[in-house]
């Protein structure tokens, strides 16, 4: 066995070192497979800081403002949760994530929670735990140039559509509607590629595309051709099995709703006063009293 894994022609003393280095490498790899067991809530309190994954390219939920600060609807929620758990809204570290890496980062332990436009669906629920839902996000809409002839989702068959990797609706686009998807990691590349005419339209979430088409330089050349076919609730995400932590975060979210934080955020970020958020605020207030 020893001769099988070490170089046969090496002298006996060298073979001993080679075997030792192989064994130690195997031990190192094996040691990383042993998971550490500690309660997440305690760990966060001990650390004194809540590490949250947020979007920085997705107005109005999480984006980089003109002053260089990260702000948005979800940042407000995250800061409130940090205040409830740790006593201060500044005991928080905001980590920029994108759709294609947020769950990975959560499960790898690099972030404690996801507040990054995470849509709920049964596949994801098998891997992570969702908090209470806090917003109904308009589903996929189609943004095209003003003179495009597309009026319905069925007409995108065979056409190239830009999008983001990891979006819930990408599979529906290719399987059900027969479109060809050109997917990028971040929204900046997606918008640039569309402006270069690398695709006929952008198929992405309603809120951000609606905001984009109202911007200068976009509003006179592009339009929303087809509206959403579904609304999808978004929620926070935490690792599976962290019961105490999930409970604490859920309580913080409900408290935020009761105190009217979400209704106020909607107004601050010009999201329009949605019925869903108002209703949840009412229910939370009623439960608190």
């Amino acid at each position, binding site marked *: 066995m020893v001769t099988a894994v070490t170089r046969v022609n090496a002298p006996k003393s060298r073979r001993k070192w080679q075997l030792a280095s192989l064994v130690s490498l195997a031990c190192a790899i094996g040691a990383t497979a042993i998971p550490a067991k500690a309660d997440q809530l305690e760990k966060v309190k001990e650390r004194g800081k809540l590490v949250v994954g947020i979007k920085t390219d997705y107005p109005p939920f999480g984006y980089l403002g003109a002053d260089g600060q990260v702000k948005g609807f979800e940042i407000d929620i995250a800061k409130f949760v940090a205040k409830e758990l740790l006593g201060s809204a500044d005991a928080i570290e905001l980590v920029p994530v994108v759709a294609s890496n947020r769950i990975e980062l959560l499960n790898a332990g690099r972030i404690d929670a996801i507040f990054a436009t995470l849509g709920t669906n049964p596949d994801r629920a098998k891997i992570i735990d969702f908090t209470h839902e806090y917003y109904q996000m308009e589903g996929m809409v189609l943004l095209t140039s003003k003179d495009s002839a597309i009026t319905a989702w069925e007409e995108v068959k065979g056409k190239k559509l830009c999008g983001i990797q990891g979006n819930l609706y990408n599979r529906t686009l290719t399987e059900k509607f027969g479109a060809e998807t050109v997917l*990028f990691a971040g929204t900046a590349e997606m918008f640039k590629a569309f402006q270069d005419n690398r695709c006929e339209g952008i198929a992405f979430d309603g809120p951000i595309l609606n905001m984009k088409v109202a911007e200068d330089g976009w509003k006179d050349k592009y339009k929303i051709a087809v509206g959403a076919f579904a609304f999808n609730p978004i929620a926070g995400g935490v690792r599976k099995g962290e019961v105490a932590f999930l409970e604490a975060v859920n309580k913080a979210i409900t408290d935020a709703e009761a105190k009217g934080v979400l209704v106020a955020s909607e107004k601050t970020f010009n999201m329009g006063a949605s019925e869903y958020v108002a209703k949840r605020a009412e229910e939370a207030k009623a439960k608190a009293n």
Partner: protein
Amino acid sequence: MNLDFSWLADPYYQYWLLRGLGTTILMSVLGLVLMMVIGIAGALIIHLRVPVLATWTTLFVEMFRNTPPLVQLFFLYFMLSEMGLTLTDPATGQRIPIFSGFTCAVLSLGLYNGALAIEIIRSGLLAVPLQTVEGARSLGYSRVQTFRYIELPIGLRLSMPAMTNNVVSLIKTSNQAALVAVADIMYTATQIMLENFRNLEVMIFVWVVYVALSSLAVVAMRYIDRLIRIPGYGAVA
């Protein structure tokens, strides 16, 4: 640590992965061809000190070797159309970019590794013993003939180990095409990961694929090396 590879049996995923693998192999092959053409042409120009072209080639090498290949790829994909290099699509009458994502990826690989190849082949050419070159010149070979019959054959053989490095580097760098929406193995693997969340298993699979591809390239290079070796010349490896 229990690994679940059952997703490999899904025919939809298999189709994606095979398509991605095909794209990666095609990109690598085309990139390699472009790399060798640029490498030999550039080494010839610099070694023979052709008047104006040598300076341009040196500038090219410095520019493309000293910048990250990803930056070069993004420049080709996003910036060229900004600079006006567009075509008018006959079907829609719109201005579309001149290079597709695939072409941009192949070009960036060929240019970046080509610049490295110029330096590698040049190092091989400089290692040809001066006495051999002088002997050829004294026999009446012109400078170009010396290059073609003496320096280049020996130089290429001497630079084989470094060139193997470059070939493997090209195959590995090809995975940056996933960032410009080219459906190579990295891109399709990311799609699968985002659907079934089996990050570790998918990444192990991608790792195995790249190790296999690179090992195949290394074995091919070793075979070529043995095939074209000059018997009795130089150190016996």
